């Protein structure tokens, strides 16, 4: 395999919370030991229930807050080392958020908004404005009509195009899209998804694509990472995750998608209950409280991500050689 563009190892983020009983320090285990790679030129989708740590992972990748522990390498260099300054890294990794309005400065014309980042990074004003107009055209907004407008004069779909243009203005290599199309109308969402695919080809971008719409994640992603309560449950090629998921949670998640066939409606819910609280996650495998394959060992032993096929890894004791689960392979197979 080629050198990954981004390498994430043992990433942890705990948020302290106020008011623990008897002075106990409680924490939200938002991200709790996450390993993955992002390969140059791919789209990596991230899915999982609300609160499983998708946005926290994205924010850590952006260095918007410090991690509790763990390491993020970009092109094998540590961020903040002499090889890679934080400011240089920030230029390479950009993010688009869900809320198109909140991420734009209401007092700047959209042209100035797009040109702002490059100017901060030392691009002369005239060149930055030129780049902004270029990008406006690229995202399908005629510069002569739109350059001087303010955010409130645009529709939601148009504002999200501006956010995408702004993220691209620094010529990054990675763009993190955190629910970037979720607030858009379905009829507009398709336009923005097409745009994202075109821009990816044109600028040779790498995407990290976070969404709760599993159909869209499947359509956009080469590989998909499924998270559950701050951990990676499974990561692998998009087709494998959706067609032959190995983790019981991934299987339940994909079977929870509403059908499009009125003669074959879903007859039973694949999972019962809600996800547990990340302040006090279940012991052992965090999924054992809702898993139909759980055995005694599942509440005692924590599964590790285990190779289970080409580029496919799963954290389930059923797939972990010698784990003690009755369905597990008996011993480790040499790689």
């Amino acid at each position: 395999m080629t050198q990954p563009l981004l390498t994430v190892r043992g990433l942890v983020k705990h948020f302290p919370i106020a008011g623990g009983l008897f002075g106990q320090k409680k924490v939200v285990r938002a991200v709790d030991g996450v390993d993955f790679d992002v390969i140059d030129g791919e789209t990596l989708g991230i899915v999982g229930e609300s609160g499983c740590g998708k946005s926290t992972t994205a924010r850590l990748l952006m260095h918007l807050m410090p991690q509790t522990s763990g390491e993020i390498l970009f092109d094998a260099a540590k961020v903040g080392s002499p090889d890679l300054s934080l400011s240089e890294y920030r230029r390479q990794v950009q993010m688009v958020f869900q809320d198109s309005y909140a991420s734009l400065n209401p007092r700047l014309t959209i042209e100035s908004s797009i040109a702002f980042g490059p100017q901060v990074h030392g691009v002369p004003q005239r060149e930055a404005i030129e780049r902004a107009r270029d990008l406006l055209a690229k995202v399908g907004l005629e510069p002569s009509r739109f350059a001087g407008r303010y955010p409130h004069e645009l529709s939601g779909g148009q504002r999200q195009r501006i956010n995408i243009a702004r993220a691209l203005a620094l010529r990054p290599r990675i763009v993190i899209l955190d629910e970037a199309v979720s607030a858009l109308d379905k009829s507009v969402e398709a336009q923005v998804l097409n745009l994202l695919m075109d821009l990816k080809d044109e600028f040779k971008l790498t995407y990290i694509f976070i969404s709760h719409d599993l159909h869209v994640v499947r359509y956009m992603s080469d590989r998909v990472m499924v998270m559950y309560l701050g951990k990676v449950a499974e990561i692998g090629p998009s087709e494998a995750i959706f067609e032959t998921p190995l983790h019981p949670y991934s299987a339940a998640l994909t079977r929870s998608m509403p059908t499009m066939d009125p003669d074959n409606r879903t007859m039973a819910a694949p999972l019962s209950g809600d996800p547990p609280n990340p302040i006090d996650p279940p012991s052992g495998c965090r999924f054992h409280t809702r898993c139909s394959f759980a055995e005694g060992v599942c509440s005692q032993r924590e599964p590790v991500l285990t190779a289970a096929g080409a580029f496919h890894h799963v954290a389930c004791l059923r797939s972990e050689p010698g784990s003690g689960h009755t369905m597990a392979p008996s011993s480790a197979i040499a790689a």
Partner: protein
Amino acid sequence: MLTAPPLVDIQDLKVTFTGGPKPICAVNGVDLALERGETLAILGESGSGKSVTLRALLRLNPEKRTKVDGRIAVGGEDVLALKPRELQAFRGRTVSMIFQEPALALDPVYTLGHQIAETIVKHNGGSYADAKAKALDLFERVRIPSPERRLENYPHEMSGGMRQRAMIALALACNPKVLLADEPTTALDATVQIQILLLIRELQREFGIAVIFVTHDIGVAVEVADRVAVMYGGRIVETGPIRDIIRRPRHPYTIGLLKSRAHDAMAKGTRLDAIPGSPPDLANLPPGCSFAPRCKLGTPACTEAVPEPVAVGEGHEARCFRTDQTAAA
């Protein structure tokens, strides 16, 4: 001919908000009929007038700043003519509503058992003890685990899915004939959403109530609905049995919406067949068909007059001048 009138009968409903600098025409002539025990999904994108239509049925739009025209009848009662006292009895007992955000329906300062019991006593009379027993029965029917204990919970002590179940229990407390559901599963996770959709389907059968379910997700409509009404720019542009809408859509907007979806059989790298442009501005509706500016089949005539519904199948209508061009090959 002796056909009973439909349970819900909305005719030429128009809702205009007059509070701002420009009137906003949110609903522009909606006709809807709902039979007993039937589930109708209203499908449409943001701002198409789905919630305003539901709220009109309960007269929940701000009356001072809203102009409402047309006719709304439920079980033979003229909703727009109800006096304040009658309206209070009508809400909850004839028609009740559940929302995307349970906070709109649940009071944070009372336990759920108390809220449900109070509602029952207020509407139906009877003793508080009987009402409490009914509340327990309701919690069992919406399949809340350990229902006795949960009745003593405050809303914030429950998870999202559980609060949604509690809100449904409250909505069913006075045996309404019609349940209005405004995107009750949109904020939920996929694994919890499907649980709530199945619950609504079961309760609909068990209680024999009629349901109007608002959603912007076609998949959700497929899971719950017998019939679908597709809204665009404050009008119902197509209505029909769920199978026909999915398999033989006839309005260019419905056709475009179904085609633009990322679906599973799609090969990697295929472009989505997106609808160009964006939804209409309700303060500035185009004349004629409101989809005309985005429509591939549009002709000059489409921008001149609003098309009337055209029958295109059994119980299947599309408001379009060019339905002769939209039949599947």
